[in-house]
């Protein structure tokens, strides 16, 4: 029979290959992916790339423009900007990725539960999230950092808290669409408890849009953390965080424009890369967006 030969290929890798090919057709998305990869590589290889300790101060050589000795110049305390930007990639990626992972782990199950059960459970959970959403994002994270105290871990937690409602809403909407699917009903007919249906059928089927939103949120969360750093509410001052570097350099914008511009460019490129990459992922993972 022809139908049996037609399906005798190994589908898993062809599906993946097809997806990669679809992704590769989008030049902008490939540029985004390349940018992200470069930053990830920089973050991983940071100790090999730096020219000196990012926290070494040299007060005799403050605000030096880019030159032979200091590749990208020095800041107001004579610290090497190249080394600080390199380490800043680590800080930013850790904040972005960790906060998104925390937000997914918390938000997606919450949203899936609300959407799957509906009724008063949904009503209560969504109203609580509405309250969270009613706060302007940066304000909420600042309040949390003030309460928890400034540290890398607390910045991650507060940025994560602020992105939980987004993931919960996404998961709820998707779960709402799935709860009447016949394969869910089949599982119920087998006597499966609610948590089983949510864990094995609902969540695996909403993971594609979650991945897309996750990628886009990494960039967004890096920006939020940088804004907090800029306002002086983020990580402690010795941590080379791009937002804080931008803020410190701003005061010397006229005499040493590189001190603010370089960390700003780093933020721009990484966030831009993440957004382009995320848009490309959406195009290949979300069938509703396919032309």
């Amino acid at each position, binding site marked *: 029979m022809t*139908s049996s030969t037609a399906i005798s290929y190994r589908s898993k890798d062809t599906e993946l290959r097809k997806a990669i090919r679809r992704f590769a057709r989008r030049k902008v998305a490939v540029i985004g992916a390349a940018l992200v990869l470069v930053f990830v590589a920089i973050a991983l290889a940071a100790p090999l790339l730096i020219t000196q300790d990012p926290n070494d101060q040299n007060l005799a050589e403050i605000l030096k423009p880019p030159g032979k000795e200091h590749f990208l110049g020095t800041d107001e305390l004579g610290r090497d900007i190249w080394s600080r930007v390199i380490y800043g990639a680590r800080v930013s990626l850790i904040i972005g990725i960790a906060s998104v992972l925390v937000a997914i782990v918390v938000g997606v199950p919450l949203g899936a539960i609300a959407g799957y059960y509906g009724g008063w459970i949904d009503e209560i959970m969504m109203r609580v999230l509405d309250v969270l959403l009613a706060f302007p994002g940066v304000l909420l994270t600042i309040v949390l950092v003030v309460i928890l105290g400034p540290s890398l871990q607390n910045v991650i937690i507060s940025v994560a808290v602020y992105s939980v409602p987004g993931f919960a809403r996404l998961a709820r909407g998707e779960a709402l669409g799935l709860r009447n699917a*016949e394969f869910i009903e*089949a*599982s119920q*007919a*087998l*006597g499966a408890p609610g948590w089983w249906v949510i864990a094995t059928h609902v969540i695996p089927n909403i993971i594609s849009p979650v991945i897309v939103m996750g990628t886009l949120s990494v960039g967004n969360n890096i920006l939020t953390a940088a804004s907090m750093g800029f306002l002086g509410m983020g990580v402690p001052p010795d941590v080379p965080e791009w937002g804080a570097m931008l803020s410190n350099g701003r005061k010397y914008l006229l005499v040493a424009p590189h001190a603010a511009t370089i960390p700003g460019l780093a933020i721009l490129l990484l966030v831009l890369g993440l957004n382009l990459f995320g848009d490309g992922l959406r195009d290949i993972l979300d069938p509703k967006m396919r032309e």
Partner: protein
Amino acid sequence: MTLSAQPIVEVRDVKKYFRVPRGTLRAVDGVSFSIERGETLGLVGESGCGKSTTGRVVLNLIPATAGTILFNGEDVTNSVDRRKRREMQIIFQDPYSSLDPRKTVGKIIEEPLVIQGIPRRERASLVKEIMADVGLSADYYTRFPHELDGGRRQRVGIARALILKPKFVVCDEPVSALDVSIQAQILNLLQDLGEQMGLTYLFISHNLSVVKHLSRRVAVMYLGKIVELAETNELFKNPLHPYTRALLAAVPIPKYRPGKPKMVLSGDVPSPIDPKPGCRFAPRCPEATEVCSSEDPLLRDAGAGHLVSCHLVR
């Protein structure tokens, strides 16, 4: 095997109402029937008449508004006992939406065993066994549903429903989403497995020829009520309710027989939301009299177990 005196499934005056913005939708409005062990009861009616809802209420996939459902003489109305789920299963209409697209065929068929707590080492052989029973080659174990055609997908759905060796299976239009060429294969498979495993089927369909082929008895539903219930041959030879006659007249016949006027219904099915009193079929019935639009007819025995709910049948 002689049919035991006690029916395996007994449905007594079951109602399912949905509250909708415009009033109360009476999807199932006082349905009673019983199914004897090993028999197949066909449930026919046009779309929207409540036949699928009836099937789901019997399995407690949606809770009944009123009425009683007995399984093996035990009241199972709105009970969610996991052990009883092993005995009652469902085969769905759409083999595309009834299989989780993220899981392999093997995982889908294995799921009932995992839920019911069958030890891991026993599962693989049970899955292989049932795959062979439903005519699926073992190669499909690692495939995803989207790689299979409709007929094979439906075999996966059947394997999932039967792996726990249930006693009673609701077939909710199991072939109406399939190509005609595959329908017969699946129907024969259901019939063979039914005989081998001693299954009792509630077979829901809008297709009279399919139901005629499989069922020992047939119930005809119209707007949430059973209007006629009889042995298959009796129903097809001697339909008493005007609606049943209209349904039978609508079945395409391969031979053209001129001169025999067809009974064609006019108008649409009235809304099941807050229906008017009287016979539900009266507004469309060509033989309706005054009493039809004022009094609700009861389902009565018109002789030899042929039940009909019509004022005109004496």
